């Protein structure tokens, strides 16, 4: 009886050890985590695009600022230098009046 029970325990332990060992081997803990090369390329490309976008935004902001300054200067000079005008004795082609 004792021998029989002992054999059963031994078999159960052996089975448990076997499956545990199987699971450990199946998990391949010695293998390094392999990264998909396409994912790696995409990550590099995304980082590059982020850098380029930042640069483009800076350039656009600089150009917009330049355009604003130029526009304001043009407005100021247009206001400061009115169109040439003189009084003549010709009959008018059109008239201005309160609109």
């Amino acid at each position, binding site marked *: 009886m004792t021998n029989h029970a002992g054999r059963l325990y031994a078999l159960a332990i052996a089975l448990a050890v076997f499956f545990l060992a199987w699971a450990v081997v199946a998990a391949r803990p010695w293998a390094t985590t392999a990264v998909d090369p396409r994912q790696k390329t995409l990550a590099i490309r995304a980082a590059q695009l982020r850098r380029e976008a930042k640069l483009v935004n800076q350039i656009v902001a600089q150009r917009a600022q330049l355009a604003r300054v130029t526009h304001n200067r043009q*407005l100021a000079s*247009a*206001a400061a230098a009115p169109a040439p*005008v003189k009084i003549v004795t*010709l009959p008018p*082609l059109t008239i*201005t009046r309160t*609109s």
Partner: protein
Amino acid sequence: MIDRRTFHAMGTEIELLVDADGADRSLNAAELEFHRLEALLSRFRDDSELSRLNRDGWIEPGPDLVRVVGLALEARERTSGRFDPTVHDALVAAGYDRSFEQLPAEGETTPPPPSAGGVWLRAGRIDLDPGVHLDLGGIGKGYAAERAAELLALAGPCLVNAGGDIAIRGGSWPVGVEHITLQLDSGGLATSGRDRRRWQRGGRELHHLIDPATGEPSETDLLRVTVVAGDAVDAEVAAKSLFLAGSKRAAAEANAAGMPAVLVTEDGRTLLAGGLA
């Protein structure tokens, strides 16, 4: 040979003059431009971009409304608030609440609301502070005259007269101002005054030139002001600003800026300033 076309738009008579033969296509394009801009900028059309902005307090507008609002805000700054697009509610309170042709001869007024509220122009969006509404009547006409002149100039030297706001591209154009004739080769000219667009409310005569400082039709000794400037928009802004200044100050300011101006006082005197003589 000068080709001429007249039509009605933006509540006034528009006159197109072009020194070219066979300019029909350009004349058509210029006329359409007025109608297109009126559909965007009129405060009397419920579906215009300006009406939507006034109704909702914000809009993601097209480029024209952005430009006109931008020009109006710059003008407000440049004239220290004498020109102000936020006088909309003051105009309505004074009774100018519909197209001038439909305005009843008599009616009621309400107390004038304050002007000079916040208008925020950011990339692709315009926001108004609560209770702020815009009127772009005068500056819109000047802007439309300039845009139409750009199109008409493709045919030849031209002049666009939008009810007194004149834009010129090339050529030499004699323009009648009061009893004199001014010859212009470029730039713009505009007249602002209280001798037209007048109405009665409560036995009092009112007009459309609101003083943003009081919110009421301005009371100066001037009847009309005509200004020559770099373009029709600047001329329109300067004419309104000088009108609100009164004759003495207006003449001094026009002389200081070298801005040709013709001032007509309410007692009938005509003053030339800004280098005109």
